[in-house]
């Protein structure tokens, strides 16, 4: 509660300081009233700035177009002085806010156009730029098991369904399913258990429509552990059917 009221006090103080600052800024009389009247161009300038398109991939071009009135000096940040209206092609490396300032006898005004640059373009067109290995790793996940069983858990069912769907959309990919066990228990038994786990994962994929001849199964038992700590977290990491790209 004490901390709370301290925060409240601080907030109140800040608000009042801001109010005082705001008041002092407003104190000088408006410039227009003190400036000599200039008959022909006293209207405030106007400005418009557009970018087309507003979302691009890195390396793509954007067309900036602008239009102003009642302005004598027009500039765009990063480009410099420009005519009162015009069109310019730019290639921003990253997302950019183009800021146009138009100044004239009637005052100053500005306009902004934001361009969003998506990177890397690989996300948009993955097959062209991502290696098959990376894509495989990004989409195919391992199925994990409870200790001393090879039953497919519900979370593993979800994972295997997604894996099957990826494999269905990439018919040229072949896969190795490795059967792994945690460090507990005996090597020979774990080798057979790893075989059961990898076969269970394979059967799930085959049931989901993946051709059996695209799947190679190797049990590693406890011979090739992913991690070696004697903790439940590590043991769970090791109790899995692990997927790798077959070559």
């Amino acid at each position: 509660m004490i901390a709370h009221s301290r925060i409240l006090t601080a907030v109140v103080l800040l608000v009042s300081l801001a109010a005082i600052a705001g008041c002092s800024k407003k104190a000088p009389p408006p410039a227009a009233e003190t400036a000599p009247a200039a008959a022909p161009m006293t209207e405030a300038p106007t400005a418009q700035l557009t970018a087309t398109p507003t979302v691009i991939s890195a390396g793509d071009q954007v067309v900036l177009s602008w239009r102003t009135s009642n302005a004598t000096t027009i500039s765009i940040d990063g480009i410099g002085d420009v005519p009162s209206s015009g069109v310019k092609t730019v290639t921003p490396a990253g997302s950019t806010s183009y800021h146009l300032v138009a100044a004239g006898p009637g005052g100053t005004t500005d306009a902004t156009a934001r361009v969003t640059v998506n990177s890397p373009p690989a996300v948009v067109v993955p097959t062209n730029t991502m290696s098959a290995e990376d894509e495989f790793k990004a989409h195919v996940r391992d199925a994990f098991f409870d200790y001393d069983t090879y039953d497919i858990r519900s979370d593993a069912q979800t994972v295997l369904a997604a894996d099957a769907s990826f494999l269905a959309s990439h018919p040229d990919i072949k896969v190795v399913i490795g059967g792994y066990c945690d460090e507990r228990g005996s090597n020979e038994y774990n080798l057979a258990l790893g075989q059961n786990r990898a076969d269970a994962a394979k059967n799930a994929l085959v049931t989901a429509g993946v051709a059996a001849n695209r799947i190679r199964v190797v049990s590693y038992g406890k011979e090739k552990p992913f991690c070696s700590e004697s903790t439940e977290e590590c043991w769970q990491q090791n109790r899995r059917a692990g997927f790798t790209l077959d070559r």
Partner: protein
Amino acid sequence: MKSFFRVFPLFLIPFAALPLSAQDWVHTGTNLGADRIRIAAADFKPLSADPQTPALKAVFDATLYADLSGAGIFDLVSKSMAPQVTPGSPQEINLPQWAAAPANAAMVAFGSLSTDNGRMFVSGWLFDARNTVTPQVLVKQYNDTAGEESARTIAHRFADEIILRLGGGINGIAETRIYFISSRSGTKEVWVMDYDGQNQHAVTHLGTISISPRISPDNSRLAFASLDRDGWDIRMYSFDLNRYVAFPAGTAGGSNQSPAWSADGSKVAFSSSRSGNPEIWLSDASGSNLHKLTAFKGPNVAPTFNPRTGAQIAWVSGRTGLPQIYTMDIDGSNVQRITDGGYAVSPSWSPNGQLLAFSWNRKYGPGDPGGDDIHVIDLASKDYLQITHESGSNDFPSWAPDGRHIVFQRTIGSHTEIWSMLADGTQQQQLTHTGNNSMPNWSWK
């Protein structure tokens, strides 16, 4: 417990009085003999001035002493209690000196060793210290190339003669060997060593992962499992031909592993997943006549033949969840569950056919790491005894052919080494000290 001993009074020797009063450990084993013979091993007499002699004599004396000490049937007179003499022949021994306190020896082994021109000659006698009229029990003479390995071999042979003569006609094991897996070269390869841990060297150099070595009963072939691109294959190495020989039944993709030899060397059983689930399969040693023995869900691995009958196989099955040990007839019939719970693996059938040694964690489960200990179960009564206690995680027991010794792997922390012991759990001895060493398999002779 008591009924267990009544059923097998000749085989199971409780050194009970001491352990039972202090803790709940009971010692058992086979062929360990009720009364240990008190025997003395005199240092042999050097008979030559050859500079090689002292070093070779030291190896010989130490090896003979260790062999007799570890045999499991002797009460060996300690060096400090033995007379400080080296009788080199029957004429030089003063038997009453050995029969009297503090040695109190019933038997004395003694003899001489000499080297000459790259050869070594050993004469050994075994005398009955209490029979001054006809004391000679045994006399042996050996002639071999001079060298440490020969000195060890001759000592092993002489020890085995004594053990055979005094140990109820059961052959000694001093010339047997132990096959095992070592990763000391970087990959898991098959290695072999003498039964006492001496003379360790690699058998395979495959550069992959090799496991589960099993030597054939005649020592001519080694079966083991090895990882390749399509899974695990049973491979065969011939020591007669010094190369790998075909075993077509052992290659089928998937997991083909944990081979076992029948005692006559004519059959090989192993686990294979070729039909889907890992099951026990049986074939001739050539790989022909392959057929499946089991059809149970879950892992089925680690067969071991009854070496006495050749008509039964024990193995490990996960058909009910955690692995349990079962037996069946060699045609797959008459399946019997042997263990009643926990995590039971790696059975090894005793040479007399009556006992199984195996690794058992009776409290296995999540959050209950328990302890994997070597147990021995009597197949007729299902009575069992725990052999290792409170020391690491113990697995892969393998009986020595004398039925008195068991070799096994012990993991402490992340380190696995090979140990041997008497089948009652006493005289535990670490045999390997370099790298990680596992899955020992004691040769049949």
